[in-house]
């Protein structure tokens, strides 16, 4: 039953390669809808998997799964309108790999075995690389090459980390299945030296995929070269999947009593990412790259919050959910900008407020949300993280954190103002059809709604997930 949720998109993905264009488009939406229904059922019933050695429904997995489902469904609606406007030669390949990408990411969220998780994360690289190469330009080829090479090295590091964890099991004379849940149960007996080494390699490995600095260099290229719906998926969901791998390993570390070690490393990597984003976002001249750097910033915030522990972890999970919702809406809006102006440089856009008012509304609201303005969830998440850091007495780090956020806001705001209000001579080639703006509105409204009202089961799931890594109030 649990396995169905990634098998269905896998099968439809394979089919989409051979189906005619129109059917392929509808299969995107259809699969998205089925996937959403299935993940709601999983959320409600929390069943045991058929292959329960390899797969399990965990609270942290469910959180990511629900985000993936909702995002994919809305993105698929957008994609259908997007494909009508843009001309992509190999549309079947595009829709097919979108579905395979969905399948692999879903597999990440439900996998419990260390190696199955590793395979699933590697499979996300393979399924998403063709999406980045969709436009077949030399720039997109370079981006794909960078993406595959850097992420492969990262994935290899993660494999080494997994091997070292089994070594720590051998030395500690532990004989259990190689699943996260089983190892967490006996974590106290593992050899601490090799466990620490394993964690560091896994953090570096999956951190590469998550976009933590200094391993983030693939991210801006890949996000700016991929077609906008694919960028939205990459940024909104893929990064969370990689974070899930770190989260699960961190659970073992906490169970083994090494939480302060893993926390310190996570905080350092988190701060480095925020600083890197702050340095690069100021001088960005392409809007999609700017959004990509903002993703690096948010992944840094999430890692930083996770490292702090306590209330900070709650903040990190809130940030993760809202970042997915808001950032994917921003990438979809950037797709409209690209279709409308036909140019990826900020200097060639402008006056969006009167040329494309509906997209402007979505883009500007998304900008406010991602910068941490009050009616959106990121504000609450960042507030919790800052509070948590003060409670844990990391004054210098929190100082750097707040300063970087201000710099990023300034840089981001400057560019958004240019896009929105500067003069422009361009004629807009795009009619803002409902399918091209409503998905963004719904994503933003969801983020807004979750800020004022958090359903009891959602709150409980978050608390269940974070209690294992030292989070809570």
């Amino acid at each position, binding site marked *: 039953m649990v396995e169905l949720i990634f098998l269905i998109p896998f099968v439809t993905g394979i089919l989409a390669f051979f189906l005619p264009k129109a059917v392929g488009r509808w299969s995107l939406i259809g699969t998205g809808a089925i996937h959403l229904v299935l993940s709601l059922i999983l959320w409600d019933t929390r069943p045991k998997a058929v292959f329960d050695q390899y797969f399990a429904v965990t609270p942290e997995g469910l959180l990511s799964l629900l985000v993936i489902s909702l995002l994919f469904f809305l993105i698929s609606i957008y994609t259908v309108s997007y494909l009508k406007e843009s001309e992509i030669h190999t549309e079947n390949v595009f829709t097919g790999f979108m579905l395979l990408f969905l399948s692999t990411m879903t597999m990440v969220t439900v996998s419990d075995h260390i190696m199955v998780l590793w395979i699933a994360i590697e499979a996300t690289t*393979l399924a998403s690389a063709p999406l980045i190469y969709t*436009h077949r330009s030399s720039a997109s080829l370079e981006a794909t*090459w960078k993406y595959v090479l850097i992420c492969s090295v990262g994935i*290899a590091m993660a494999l*080494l980390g997994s091997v070292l964890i089994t070594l720590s099991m*051998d*030395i500690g004379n532990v004989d259990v299945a190689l699943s996260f849940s089983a190892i967490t149960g006996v974590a106290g007996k593992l050899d601490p030296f090799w466990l620490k080494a394993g964690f560091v390699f896994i953090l570096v490995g999956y951190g590469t995929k998550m976009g933590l600095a200094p391993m983030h260099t693939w991210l801006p290229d890949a996000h700016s070269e991929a077609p906008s719906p694919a960028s939205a998926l990459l940024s909104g969901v893929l990064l969370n999947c990689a974070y899930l791998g770190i989260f699960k390993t961190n659970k073992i570390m906490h169970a083994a009593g090494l939480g302060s070690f893993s926390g310190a490393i996570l905080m350092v990597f988190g701060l480095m990412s925020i600083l890197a984003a702050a340095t690069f976002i100021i001088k960005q001249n392409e809007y999609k790259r700017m959004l990509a750097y903002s993703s690096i910033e948010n992944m840094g915030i999430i890692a930083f919050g996770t490292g702090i522990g306590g209330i900070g972890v709650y903040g990190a999970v809130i940030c993760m959910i809202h970042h997915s919702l808001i950032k994917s809406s921003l990438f979809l809006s950037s797709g409209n900008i690209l279709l409308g102006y*036909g140019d990826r440089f900020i200097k060639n856009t402008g006056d969006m407020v009167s040329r494309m008012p509906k997209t402007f509304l979505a883009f500007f609201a998304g900008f406010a949300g991602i910068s941490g303005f009050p009616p959106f969830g990121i504000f609450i998440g960042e507030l919790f993280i800052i509070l948590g850091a003060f409670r844990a007495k990391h004054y210098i780090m929190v100082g750097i954190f707040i300063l970087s956020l201000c710099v990023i806001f300034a840089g981001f705001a400057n560019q958004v103002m240019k896009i929105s209000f500067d003069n422009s001579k361009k004629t807009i080639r795009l009619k803002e059809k409902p399918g091209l703006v409503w998905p963004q509105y719904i994503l933003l409204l969801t983020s807004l709604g979750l800020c004022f009202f958090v359903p009891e089961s959602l709150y409980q799931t978050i608390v269940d997930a974070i209690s294992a890594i030292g989070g809570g109030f």
Partner: protein
Amino acid sequence: MTILQVDTLLTLVLLSVLFSFGSSRLPRLIKLVAFQGIVVSMIPFLLGHDMTAGGIVFTLATIAIRGIIIPMSIITAINRVDIKREVEPIIGYNASIVCGLLLIVTATYIGKNLNIPAVKDYTLLFPTAIALLVAGMFLLMSRRNAIAMVLGYITMENGIYLVGTTISVKARHIVEFGILLDILAGVMIMAIILQNIKQTFDDVDTAHLRSLKE
């Protein structure tokens, strides 16, 4: 197989690391990496891990993939599309060899100080694994040629395979998944071929793409 013989083989692998740092032409680099691949896949067999029929088939398959299929496909790739044979170093060959020597010394020193029960008798096993890993990363970072980078990646992967198959009995089953890494390497090779095809038809394609700009 005695300890001495295994260590002799591993010494050859360490030497091949030095050679690969010093080699300027792709074909030789490919042969060196193929040699490393074959030795590394044989090691678990030589260590006398109890071999099931499945294990033997697996060893043979790894040797075939690492020693024959991947090197051959890379050679085909360079022959088919006109790729430069020069590895285009960022760090010169002599400096690279010095780095390699330092690397081997450090790896041996670290290997000695780590206590791993499974490989206590084989003094060179862990140092070789570390050396291969770091050497692969070194090649990845210090060579501009795309094929040389892929070869660096494969070297690194050989190092991980050596760690995985030898230090822990449990890890053996895990690293069998390492075969998937080979698939990734294959994908990279394909990417290079595509890139070169792209370069060949550059003017045609880009003009075409510009008119269709998103």
